């Protein structure tokens, strides 16, 4: 059922465009935000943080119909053992590949933030967010 929900979001051009555009806003905001933090410019960092959170929330809405995940705390356990396992074996390598891409994005970020290159830092931002989306899909069947 959850897989069908995500498939619906991909097949709906409006939702997919909104997802892509808002994650692009998040990447731009994160990239410039880290460069501004490196330069010690708090007001611009605040502006970037606003853009990043707004972009993420809108992207989350585009693919799930919710701006934020609902409260799913278990009323019996602090950590439900089922939450630590993935449904199928094929999900593990995909999740690990996504997390590896995410960490690669951080590595690229180190290089380009230091160079204060706003455009190139988005390569790191795209890898970071793309890796997150891949890993999240492997774990939950939803992009965010």
């Amino acid at each position, binding site marked *: 059922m959850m897989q069908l929900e995500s498939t619906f979001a991909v097949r709906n051009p409006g939702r997919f465009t909104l997802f892509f555009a808002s994650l692009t806003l998040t990447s731009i905001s994160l990239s410039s935000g880290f460069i501004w*933090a490196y330069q010690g410019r708090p007001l611009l960092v605040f502006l970037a943080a606003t853009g990043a959170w707004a972009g993420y929330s809108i992207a989350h809405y585009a693919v799930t*119909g919710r701006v934020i995940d609902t409260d799913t705390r278990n009323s019996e356990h602090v950590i439900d053992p089922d939450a630590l396992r993935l449904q199928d074996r094929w999900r593990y390598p995909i999740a690990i590949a996504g*997390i590896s891409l995410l960490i690669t994005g951080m590595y690229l970020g180190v290089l380009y933030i230091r160079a204060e290159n706003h455009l190139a830092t988005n390569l790191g931002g795209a890898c970071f967010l793309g890796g997150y989306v891949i890993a999240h899909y492997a774990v939950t069947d939803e992009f965010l």
Partner: protein
Amino acid sequence: MSTQVVHWPSFLTGSALIIGGSTIAGIFSFQNRVWIVFLGFTCFLEGYRTAQRGRDWLTPLRAPLRGTNTTKAVIREATRLFLMLIGVSIIALGVTKFAQTIIDPSALDAAVAGIYSIGGYIWAHTVLNHGLL
């Protein structure tokens, strides 16, 4: 696809905490002040919980009380909060390491920063949302 009725006052209050917290964490990570980065991410976490729970954030035990007694729920929520703060500490260490690696580049430190950041995130998310990501 399910849609959600957002409790906007809670979402906007939570969002303000998230934005303020991440601004503090971002700025102070470059000054290598881990404790202030930790406070920034704690602010972020509380903002996320506020945004997520809508009206329930004013009554934090309402959801966990379902089908159990008050003492158990208080112990469970206190344990959950403690475990989440451990996750936040790991994130704070990871992001501070990331910022310091930008100032003084090192491939090994960049990898360590990535592993700490995503590891802390997975830890905190599992405690908060009952899923790895």
